[in-house]
């Protein structure tokens, strides 16, 4: 009896499992060594390991570290806003809408157009708060409408086909929107008008030096996420969305209009991407037709890291990913003697994805997927 059990458990450990274990151990060791080396460097800058690996590294001052955390958080808040769209659509329809990054880009782009017009009219300088509301409104509307239109013409006709089909379609939609924007506005990078001094200047809050723009980003992101949470958890519409995500047939049996609920889901995801787009525009002040690509992929990563289909996970995943890609290069990679660490943000972001998938395949906050969901 015990022998057969042993045999079975033995045969379960395949070569792939062993390989993965080795990778897990290696990754974990690397991170631990990096962090230990970082701490050693902080405490004793000229220690032998630091001298050997990276004699030029100076370590970080407290202010630098706080700066990294703050940029990580504001960047992460935007990833989180975009990630919500991926996660919600996945929750309801079970496929990844790769065109969502473009929905975000369209928001940034429409915000640029509006802000240019407002700048020309002089309202940007004279009444910035009103202008801000206007561009946010325009971006939300544009992104929402884009998301709803793509659902209607690209995804709804494919509702009953295998999930791979809408996934591939979404890549096509993504190319289409990119190129449409390229055709309409050209390839040049477009700059948002300068922000008023009172907003963008550095402020000191709880000993943390922080640019006003980043505060704005975090505050707006927090407000949007809170209102989304309220919508999903506390309203009849949100209850319907969650019901549809779980079981469409029974949801329609309750009298829920499933199609309308799916449209609302796309729309709300689009609105969040629109808000994210404006924040992106305000923070980086430039937009091209390719703006949506990398943030889109990162946000998708954030959604997976947080546990796809889970909204709280998407937000947390975004913040986690943003912080990681901001902090990890300096804290883990530099003490190890990796050259040019500040350019390794993107590599770090995707390494985080690999790490999370290695250690917790369903994401940080994800539920265990059943066999049927995994298809």
């Amino acid at each position, binding site marked *: 009896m015990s022998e057969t059990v042993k045999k079975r458990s033995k045969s379960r450990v395949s070569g792939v499992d062993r390989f993965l274990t080795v990778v897990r151990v290696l990754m974990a060791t690397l991170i631990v060594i990096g962090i230990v080396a970082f701490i050693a460097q902080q405490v004793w800058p000229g220690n032998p390991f630091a001298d050997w690996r990276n004699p030029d590294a100076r370590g970080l001052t407290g202010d630098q570290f706080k700066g990294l955390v703050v940029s990580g958080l504001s960047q992460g808040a935007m990833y989180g806003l975009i990630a919500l769209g991926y996660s919600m659509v996945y929750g309801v329809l079970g496929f990844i809408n790769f065109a969502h990054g473009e929905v975000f880009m369209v928001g940034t782009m429409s915000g640029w157009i509006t802000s240019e017009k407002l700048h020309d009219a002089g309202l940007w300088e004279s009444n910035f708060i009103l202008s801000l509301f206007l561009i946010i409104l325009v971006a939300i509307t544009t992104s929402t409408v884009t998301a709803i239109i793509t659902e209607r013409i690209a995804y709804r006709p494919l509702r009953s086909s295998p999930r791979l089909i809408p996934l591939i379609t979404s890549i096509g939609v993504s190319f289409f929107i990119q190129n449409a924007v390229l055709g309409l506005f050209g390839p040049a990078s477009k700059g948002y008008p300068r922000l008023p001094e009172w907003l963008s200047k550095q402020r000191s809050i709880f000993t943390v030096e922080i640019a006003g723009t980043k505060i704005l980003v975090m505050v707006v992101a927090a407000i949007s996420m809170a209102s989304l949470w309220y919508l999903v958890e506390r309203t*009849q519409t949100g*209850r*319907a969305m*969650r*019901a549809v995500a*779980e*079981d469409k*047939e*029974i*949801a*329609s*049996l*309750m*009298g*829920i*209009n499933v199609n309308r609920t799916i449209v609302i889901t796309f729309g709300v995801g689009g609105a969040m991407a629109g808000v994210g787009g404006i924040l992106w525009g305000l923070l980086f002040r430039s937009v091209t037709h390719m703006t949506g690509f990398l943030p889109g992929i990162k946000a998708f990563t954030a959604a997976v890291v947080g546990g796809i289909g889970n909204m709280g996970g998407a937000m947390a995943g975004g913040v986690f990913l943003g912080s990681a890609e901001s902090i990890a290069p300096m804290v883990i990679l530099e003490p190890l003697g990796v050259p040019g660490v500040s350019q390794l943000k993107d590599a770090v972001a995707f390494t985080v994805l690999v790490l999370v998938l290695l250690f917790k395949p369903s994401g940080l906050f994800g539920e265990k997927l059943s066999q049927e969901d995994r298809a």
Partner: protein
Amino acid sequence: MTETALLEFRSVNTHYGAVHILKDVDLAIYPGEMVCLLGGNASGKSTTLKTLLGMVTPTSGHVLLDGEVVNDKPTSYRVTNGVTMVPENRRLFKRLTVKENLELGAYLRDDREGIEEDLENIYELFPRVKERLSQKAGTLSGGEQQMVAIGRALMSRPRVLLMDEPSMGLAPALVQQNFELIQQIHEEGMAIFMVEQNANMALSIADRGWVLQTGRVVLDDTAEALLANPELRSSYLGES
């Protein structure tokens, strides 16, 4: 009969693609009665329910609700007009709380006081459910889930309750209890249309019954007559 049937099939045919499922099916459910539909696997029982609810549209024939043809009316129309179903295996929204499940049952209603009143009635009917309101429905036991599923259906204030295999997946001890519950609801005036594999149990509480075989109604009689019919099991239900 002069009384108008609550729900009625008049020579209904349905197809899934080229496959002919229901063949000239006639059914009628009158207010306040308890009827059951029996049949083996793949006899068209589930399709019958889906057609009654408007999830499947008949290719010919008529579905009538209160004597009005509702072939093209959506499910929500039928739910608003008093038809609802307790699905097979209960199919609760497992990630939602018990309270949310019950509230979703009343999704199409907007009379706040009426909903509150019905919630209270359900708590009275199922005191166990009240204790678990804020729990995720997926964490409940099978028997408790059954209570929530029935409660959820009752929240739409139905006049007829369609029940798809109510005893499926329940522990044997609960099956009896479940049938008593159905009877209790029925005694309060609810029409019940039950689809069951457990023919004995179903017929012992029903007024009338139909037997479906490969999409055709082969027997249509009172429950007593069906129970007494020696051929019922061997020929129609595929039991030995």
